[in-house]
């Protein structure tokens, strides 16, 4: 692709991302809002491809579409009065949110414009994904290795605390009941 086409596409994708982001708040349907957000993320993922970070870009698309597909279920289930199957407004606390959004935009955009960005020294690495990974995690691998089991055990313990039923409900007081008594039986028959 020539430089001009690339530039037009890159800025076009940026415009799509922002427009889809606006639609999130303008639409009156939870489903449309969720998938407008997904479209915004997909446009950003496509922009990342232009930075020659193919892996990161494709993963952004993959994760965000998956996340929004699941999110749509929860949004429809929990947001709104009679689950969000009916049209409803996507905004609340209008003034506070507008103030916070404007403040965050000014800080971030101002920072992006005012920070003295360094000039490029040397050439870009051959494999940008590898060098990005090295730069973000290379010297902090120990932290990463510790953080992931901590995060995982947090999820598991939060689930254990949140679940109303324990193993005694499933397997009886002596834990000997087989198969377990589940409101929703699984396919393996445990």
């Amino acid at each position, binding site marked *: 692709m020539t430089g001009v086409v690339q530039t037009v596409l890159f800025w076009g994708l940026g415009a799509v991302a922002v427009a889809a982001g606006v639609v999130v708040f303008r639409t009156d349907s939870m489903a*449309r809002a969720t*998938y407008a957000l997904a479209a915004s993320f997909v446009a950003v993922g496509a922009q990342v491809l232009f930075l020659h970070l193919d*892996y990161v870009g494709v993963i952004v698309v993959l994760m965000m*579409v*998956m996340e929004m597909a699941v999110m*749509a279920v929860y949004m429809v289930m929990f947001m709104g009065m009679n689950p969000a199957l009916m049209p409803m407004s996507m905004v609340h606390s209008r003034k506070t949110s507008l103030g916070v959004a404007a403040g965050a935009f000014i800080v971030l955009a101002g920072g992006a414009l005012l920070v003295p960005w360094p000039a490029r020294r040397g050439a870009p690495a051959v494999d940008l994904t590898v060098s990005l990974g090295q730069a973000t995690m290379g010297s902090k691998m120990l932290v990463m290795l510790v953080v992931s089991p901590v995060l995982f055990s947090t999820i598991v313990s939060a689930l254990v605390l949140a679940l109303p039923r324990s193993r005694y409900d499933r397997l009886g007081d002596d834990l000997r009941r087989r198969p377990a008594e589940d409101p929703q039986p*699984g*396919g393996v028959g445990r």
Partner: protein
Amino acid sequence: MVTVSVAWAPLALLLVVAAAWWAACLDAVVSGGRWGAPAAEAARLLRQRRRTLLAADRLLWRLGGGGLLVAALLMVAVIPLGRWTLSDLGVGVVWFNAMDVLVWALVWMAGWGANSTHALVGGYRFLAQALAYELPLMFALTAPAVGAGSLRVADVIAAQHGLWFVVWMPVAFVVFCACVVAFSVQGPFAAAAAADIGGGVLAEVSGVDRLLLLAGRYALLAAGSAFAVVAFFGGGDGPWLPDWVWTLVKTFAVLSVLVLVRRRVPLLRPDRLVEVGWVLVLPLTLLQLLVVSVVVVVR
């Protein structure tokens, strides 16, 4: 690998539609119908007027129905036909995975858009099923990538010269094929469009929308079969015939087997499937991945 111009994309679409057509015809014949039945049904649907529904979310509905075919075409974009490919993307395997995740959103939108209970239940059923098959699918895809030491589809094919991955990654292959049937909403994984909910996501679609949805499901099956060929059957690898012929022959063979086998398996309930997927299939796939990794390290 030769990257061809985007101008060849219509040919890729034509091949996907031809393969989908073949799958539909084969299915019609083994169901006791005629070879021409899908053509007749397509002609009927093209002439049929769209059903109008109260408060339907037309945008999401049309996106969901028409998107399946687009997702299938985007999958095929990284699958080489012999030595020609539309895109020699360095992360082709992940690209395929991302495109099959699009199906999550598309099927749910097809179910949501109609503003009909049965269609909506179908959409939710598909998401439950997707939670069951997606992780096994990801790790089944990881096996050939680890075997080749690359996420580039061309490298995966090159690494199979001499010994196809299907020989020493049989579990990953079988899991992958099952997942292809699952993301195509077909056979035992068609609970989202099952008769017990009046056709589910298909309950309200009519006319050209229905045609696109039905064709999209077969197109996904065809694209998945084509990816099974490059990931496990050496792509265009084969004697005497040109490599592009081999790619097509193998794809049609895998597709035909999937069409025939999926008919023999009863419908699986998505709520039961999640446990099977996570407690049984996922560990099996991880074991397969372990074997592949050990082989790669030792060799």
